[in-house]
């Protein structure tokens, strides 16, 4: 049962200008900025200097965000040196002009050689990763500690191990926030779908991977790759927050220079968010706008499969979809096609629907719990500000406890006790307490560990 409402607004009324942050875009709360998050200079294997690259992206390409992500190969070959990285950070800070342009300093980690795991971008870390060609988990662990956004670059099985075939490690889910759906002229849509299907919570990004003097303007037959970033202001902290929150979309602009805006909200929450909700109808809101190019088709993907589509043939589209969100964990994203060849992919909205049959029920996904641990899902309490989850064995001993300040998200349990030991097989009781200013709700559930 779906109800689709297609709203059309007059383009003139919206005063859209793709090169200008679109305050008139229907999606409220944030403004759209355009960025290129993957590029190089001669600090590794590119051309020219960082200050030239940033200035080019700002003044010639006319984009709002430019990241330089020099290779970090541990000093081998074209790797950036620690001194140059510190200089890159300094230059990026100097060139950044709040409200006009944000320059990000980053590094491209890893190797695509035969023993490497692939390439990852991370931005604005204080130092370089101590390079280890094959230590993927060590790299994830380091990224987690940095608390900065990171991205799977050009994820393709043709490249080395491709992050162990994009194997999902729940403990490192927070290490990576984005995935390059487009790298210059190459699409990695299948990798995007595979990463999401495996469990990664990643958003969409499209970048140019510049190695020559084309920062922000590199174009191929498929178009010009750019990342749309929805941030509240054009400042470095706001942009980094948006990247961490996956409030992004990937776009291939075609014809050249035809940037567009694309956004998705689910139940009023922005794409990229992970949230728990009660069973019922889920409302998705898609907005797409372009100064001139016509959107010929929009596809809604649900859990990797096209669930709906529309053919607006307009350059400003507001598409509202209502559907029954089944119990479980789902992700939704939108792919947009333009008549001129432009394409876009939103980041997913990650929706977790707690079981309906009992308002106070707590469950684990998966059940039984094995080595990978599980997420503790529960029916959220409106207005809750703090959630506490506790796990007890049958003897009544509390074996694990966690406190979350995000009441709208499920809580992850790694299947271990408070001392980090794997919990033995058996039955365990879970108590979740949600505390809000007005009330407290206690929910209980039972789970099984079977390794």
């Amino acid at each position, binding site marked *: 049962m779906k109800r689709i409402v297609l709203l059309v607004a007059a383009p003139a009324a919206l005063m859209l200008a793709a090169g200008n942050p679109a305050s008139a875009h229907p999606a409220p709360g944030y403004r759209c900025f355009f960025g290129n998050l993957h590029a190089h200079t001669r600090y590794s294997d590119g051309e020219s200097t960082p200050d030239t690259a940033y200035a080019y992206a700002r003044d010639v390409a006319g984009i709002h965000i430019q990241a330089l992500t020099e290779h970090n190969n541990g000093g081998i070959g074209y790797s950036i040196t620690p001194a140059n990285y510190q200089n890159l950070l300094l230059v990026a800070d100097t060139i950044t002009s709040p409200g006009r342009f944000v320059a990000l300093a980053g590094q491209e980690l890893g190797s695509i050689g035969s023993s490497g795991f692939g390439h990852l971008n991370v931005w604005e870390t204080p130092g370089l990763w101590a390079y280890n060609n094959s230590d993927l988990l060590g790299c994830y662990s380091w990224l987690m500690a940095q608390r900065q956004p990171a991205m799977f670059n050009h994820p393709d099985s043709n490249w080395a191990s491709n992050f162990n075939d994009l194997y999902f490690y729940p403990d490192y889910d927070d290490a990576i926030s984005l995935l390059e759906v487009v790298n210059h002229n190459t699409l990695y849509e299948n990798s995007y779908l595979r990463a999401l299907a495996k*469990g990664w919570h990643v958003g969409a990004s499209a970048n140019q991977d510049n190695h020559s003097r084309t920062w922000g303007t590199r174009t191929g037959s498929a178009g010009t790759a750019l990342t749309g970033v929805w941030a509240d202001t054009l400042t470095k902290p706001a942009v980094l927050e948006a990247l961490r929150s996956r409030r992004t979309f990937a776009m291939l602009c075609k014809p050249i220079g035809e940037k567009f805006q694309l956004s998705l909200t689910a139940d009023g929450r922005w794409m990229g968010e992970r949230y728990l909700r009660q069973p019922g109808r889920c409302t998705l809101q898609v907005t797409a706008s372009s100064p001139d190019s016509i959107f010929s088709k929009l596809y809604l993907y649900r*859990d990797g499969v096209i669930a709906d589509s529309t053919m607006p043939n307009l350059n400003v589209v507001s598409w509202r979809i209502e559907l029954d969100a*089944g*119990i*479980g*964990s*789902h992700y939704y994203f939108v792919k947009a096609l333009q008549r001129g060849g432009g394409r876009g992919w939103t980041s997913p909205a990650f929706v*977790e*629907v707690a*079981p309906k049959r009992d308002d106070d029920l707590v*469950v*684990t*996904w*998966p*059940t*039984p719990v094995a080595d*990978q641990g599980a997420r503790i*899902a529960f029916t959220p309490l409106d207005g809750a500000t703090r959630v506490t989850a506790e796990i*007890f*064995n*049958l*003897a*009544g*001993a*509390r*074996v694990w406890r966690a406190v979350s300040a995000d009441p709208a998200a499920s809580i992850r349990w790694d299947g271990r*006790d408070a001392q980090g*030991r*794997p*919990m*033995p*097989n*058996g*039955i365990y*009781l879970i*108590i979740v307490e949600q505390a809000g200013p007005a009330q407290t709700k*206690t929910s*209980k559930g*039972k*789970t*099984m560990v*079977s*390794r």
Partner: protein
Amino acid sequence: MKRFVPLLLVATMCATAGAQNSAVLYWNLPTTPSQLAYGAGTLVMAGEPQGSAANPASLADVKWRSLATAGVQWWGGVFGGSVAATLPVGKRSGTAAVTAGYWGLGAITAYDERGNPLGSVSAQAVCGGVHYGRRLFGGLSAGAGAVFSNLVLPQRSDLGLAFTAGMHYRWRFLSASLLARDLGPKYPVNAAGRGKLPSALTAGVRSSFWGERIAAGLQLEARDGERPYPVAALEAAPVPLVTARLGYSGERDRPEMSPLGAGIAVRTTGRQDFAVEYGYRSYGRLGRVQALSLGIRF
């Protein structure tokens, strides 16, 4: 009260790790009213075959045949039950006991990683043991027991084995016990990933006075990976045939468990003794636990 002279037994604590890896978790969970009321204190206050079997050294004092069955309603939709029997082997050969237990751990909805329901899964555990105690000389006796617990999960089971050895001394109205429990191989014995058994050392005393109308026990329980804690138990028969029970546990590793447990027993005496017992303990937010048993002594 003069007869109530507690003995002090100094216990040497053995320490490893893995308190949750008990091979005999389901054996150690109480199924009888007295186990529920007294907690670990049952080891010095045993009144029924299940409790006597948990302290095999004290079996030497049991000179009658008995049979008991008990059921317990646990929290979380879990139910348990047990049967136990004691049998004096011969006039000088001590007493044996056999026990068997079953735990229905309930059915749970299975989910995949994305929360898609996959149907229902259930679990249960069976456990049992053989126990033997006999008098050595004077009031001193010794005992040993072997127990197993088998946790049955979908597509696998976990088998645990454990042993108990202990000494028991009885002098008039006083008795004292020293037990080493849950000794044995790593758990589960049939899995590649196995953890050390959290063995336990228990020292306790019991005394009865006022014509056996009041009995009290004091015990120190030390289990690997947990903090040692005291246990006290009191049993009083204010009117004939009716016994009230009260237990106290100083255990702090089970924050929801009430330190107090309570119970009541009604007995008939004659050629055969019958007993109906009830026990209760609160586990706070987890729920309440209550047990009912029926026993015969002959």
